[in-house]
């Protein structure tokens, strides 16, 4: 055995350093900085390229929300169906039977369900995206990525529930002998529009919520109001006179009415659809820009 007289205790491989700087590989630096950090200018860009670079994060956050949402629940994803289904049953009893609301010659249960389907998606998406930034405070203060992704993922996760709830519609349509028509082709456009609308409101609410926690309390209440001023329980044909204008300016009107019409083979209303599309697009653009403008303070105030 040869004598060993070096270290008295176990060796550990933390090298003593100076000289690292002259390491083997030296990356070639680009001429222009990849990122320049400066205090914000008044006008901000949407940074769609940055958003695109992080598209996988959007996917994973959505996937996480979907995966985690019904963990440790007895009924699991059935909840996505229960909510609109039971609302429909209660609405049918209350408004269809008791109040006797005329539903444009469509059986009230399917009339209500076809309206509740996009509505449930919208209200859930807005609620969860509105609270998403505050709920992800630890991410916001510790890691950089385009902040738009957080509320967007919350909206996207709502789409999964929407698809599940949609499946209930199929037996209902059979039961009430609804005939299918070419109008169904419009459905994807309507789903896109309502997603845009959910995103528009969700982005704005989530950003405001960071600064003003009032949003958390105001939101459920505002959503409830919104439902009553939209043609979900009643058809828009029931509203006449001066109120009609307000109903038309509600971007949800055109979406819900046409969603119902395309599914149940009723009369499409192109003008209200055009108004909804225009208002929704403008709203989305506005809230995305406001979001970007407020974004830089998130980490400091959340």
């Amino acid at each position, binding site marked *: 055995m040869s004598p060993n007289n*070096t270290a008295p205790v176990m060796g550990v491989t933390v*090298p003593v*350093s100076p000289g690292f700087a002259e390491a083997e590989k030296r990356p070639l*630096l680009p001429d222009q*900085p990849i*990122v320049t950090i400066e205090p914000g200018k008044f006008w901000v860009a949407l940074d769609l390229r940055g958003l695109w670079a992080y598209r996988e994060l959007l996917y994973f956050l959505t996937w996480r929300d979907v995966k985690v949402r019904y963990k440790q629940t007895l009924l699991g994803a059935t909840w996505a169906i229960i909510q609109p289904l039971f609302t429909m049953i209660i609405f049918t009893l209350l408004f269809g039977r008791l109040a006797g609301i005329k539903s444009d010659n469509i059986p009230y249960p399917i009339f209500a369900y076809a309206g509740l389907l996009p509505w449930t998606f919208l209200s859930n998406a807005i609620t969860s995206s509105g609270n998403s930034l505050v709920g992800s405070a630890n991410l916001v203060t510790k890691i950089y990525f385009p902040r738009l992704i957080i509320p967007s993922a919350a909206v996207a996760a709502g789409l999964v529930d929407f698809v599940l709830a949609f499946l209930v519609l199929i037996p209902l349509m059979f039961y009430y002998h609804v005939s299918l028509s070419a109008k169904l082709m419009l459905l994807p456009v309507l789903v896109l529009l309502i997603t845009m609308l959910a995103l528009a409101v969700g982005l704005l609410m989530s950003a405001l919520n960071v600064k003003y926690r009032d949003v958390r309390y105001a939101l459920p209440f505002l959503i409830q109001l919104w439902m009553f001023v939209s043609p979900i329980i009643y058809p828009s044909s029931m509203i006449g006179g001066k109120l009609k204008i307000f109903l038309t300016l509600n971007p949800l009107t055109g979406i819900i009415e046409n969603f119902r019409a395309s599914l149940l083979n009723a009369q499409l209303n192109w003008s209200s659809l055009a108004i909804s599309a225009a208002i929704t697009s403008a709203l989305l653009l506005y809230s995305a820009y406001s979001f970007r403008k407020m974004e830089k303070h998130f980490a400091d105030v959340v």
Partner: protein
Amino acid sequence: MKPIIRVQNLSKLYRIGGREAPYQTLRESLVQAVRSPLKSLRRNGSGADGTIWAVKDVTFDVQAGEVVGIIGRNGAGKSTLLKILSRITEPTTGRVELYGRVGSLLEVGTGFHPELTGRENIFLNGAILGMKRDEVLRKFDEIVAFAEVEKFIDTPVKRYSSGMFLRLAFAVAAHLEPEILVVDEVLAVGDASFQRKCLGKMSDVARQGRTVLFVSHNMGAIQGLCSRAIWLANGKIVGQGETNRVVAEYMDMIGQDFTVPGESDAGSLSIQKVFLKNEQGDTTTNFSFNRPLVIEIHYCARRRIEKPYFWISVSSKFGPLFAASMLLDDMRPDYIEGEGCVTCFFERLSLLPQVYNVSMGVRGNDGVSVLMKSTDVGVFQITSTPEDLGFRGELADTMAWDTSPFVIPYKWYLSGG
């Protein structure tokens, strides 16, 4: 030569008004909007109250491949600087140019979801840190092996032990491959073996020629890893250059001024000064092998505190080393009230020439409630050379930095061939 990071006149102003919560309610905002024209008149443009410059006029360059340590007391602006560099928060003035992709690790385990399995969390966390899916796939086995969680990879992480969780979280972050890596005090968590693993990985990263900015209170780790150090105090750079020199200056400085950053609870007890003294009673940061260390804690108790427990713990880059704790010895004062001093006398520092950190805390009579705790009350180093300790091996100078620092007298007995 062109730097990979160029920081110019960077400043960050924080508003820290007396408000409890940093966020506002709508009503407060409205009230403020009404009042503010008056307020700005009244204030007469001084504007100094309720704001603090977390970072002030900081300018430096970092060359590609450099490993730079950032040191300073709590609240010196280190973390804010890293947050600006990682684009989490925006500077108030100034400019940063980054000529490479930045990956930052400001906290271990951010974005992990307890309900998801280890496997799922690796992908999720990878995406959060900016890794592509196929990049994660490629490194998946390596990450799992590094974290030593092969058997539990399909178990929800809420069932992991805290050690497993930390290893997995660090493993994902450690396999990021940005050109610039920004790391905040990650070594403050976990046990000694975890910290050693982190340090080993960090030095691998450094050797691959990547640029690293590294914040730590652990002077040993800074000296072991960094070729250059930047010393921040009150948001400003007060020293920078070759690591050993800057660390030595920093330690001299804090040796003279040991005001403890207040983490004291409820204001019932504050620690005013902590002095590290040698056997002659001189305050110093330099100690000799096998000589005594005296720690004086000057406190002020604003009310009568019955039978408090004081504890002192000394750690190095390898983690906690030894402690003196009234929780163990029960040598407690009957009560403390007003100003006073607790002195602890460590008989012999049988430690290798490295840098050591002192932390301390005080617990209430029940032994559970924390009256105050601070992880950063003092730093000292052993200045004896390995030769003074009787270590004359060829590699003794370098090994003394690299091995766990306790020295217990020993002898070898050789027999046979």
